[in-house]
């Protein structure tokens, strides 16, 4: 294999995953929270592809492709929710969603 070791790819993957997690933990706009979730899933995808290359098996790639579909589905539902909330004039700020608490 030319270029860097699989370890390097995994480092990038971990970084993306952690960045995405940070986004979910920090951001208040549900849209950006969704984007951050995508970032996390893509971090995991990179790890899967890298491991797939490491082991020379196709399972990781299959897994990654499935994750893409799932991620797309989550986005659709998430965006649907956000649009529905916007229609109801709810503030698009996850910190304002505190009707349910205690």
């Amino acid at each position, binding site marked *: 294999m030319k270029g860097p070791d699989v370890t390097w790819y995994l480092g990038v993957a971990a970084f993306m995953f952690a960045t995405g*997690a940070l986004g979910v933990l920090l951001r208040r706009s549900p849209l950006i929270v969704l984007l951050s979730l995508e970032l996390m899933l893509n971090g995991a995808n990179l790890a899967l592809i890298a491991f797939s290359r490491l082991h020379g098996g*196709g399972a990781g790639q299959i897994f990654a492709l499935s994750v893409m579909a799932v991620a797309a589905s989550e986005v659709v539902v998430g965006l649907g929710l956000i649009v529905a909330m916007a229609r109801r004039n709810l503030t698009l700020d996850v910190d304002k969603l505190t009707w349910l608490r205690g």
Partner: protein
Amino acid sequence: MSSLVLAASAGNVLTWVVWFGAALACVASGIAVVSFSNPFYSALALIGNLASLAVLYLLLSAEFVAAAQVLVYAGAVMVMFLFVIAYLGGRADAPWAGGPSLHRFAAVGAAVAILVEVLVVLGLKAGGELSHPARISGDFGSPAEIGRLFLTDHLLAFEITSVVLLIAAVGGVVLGSHARRLQAEEAGLE
């Protein structure tokens, strides 16, 4: 002279350079996604991120996944994202407004902890088997190979994926359906 260097290390340096560029783009766009205050820019940053990821996939010989990444993900999914953001209008929220708080401190702490943990795990393994990737044949990661796997070893995964997408479509319809339609139907129900 330069052709000699190139010839000596074959494509290796080039691969490193490409990797470095893509990785840097990945990291930078990832940071950008979570730090832009306007969701529109965040989404654009994510598209960049996905594109640079596709490059990394190519370097890992996952050609089909790379193509799918660009076509499906960066192409279709993100376009949908951009549409919604455009529809809702740019509602910015500044990630760091209001100065440091306990929650932010803890959030950064947790994210860093997870990152460090994974890096430590990788460090513990580095130089070991992680440096010895398997030999792969030419059609590894090719559409034909992926297609074969989806029809044999992972037949079920393929089918479930389609179910998940269908459900998501239903969800989009249910949640996004317009209030006027609801009223019309309700009138029919009475």
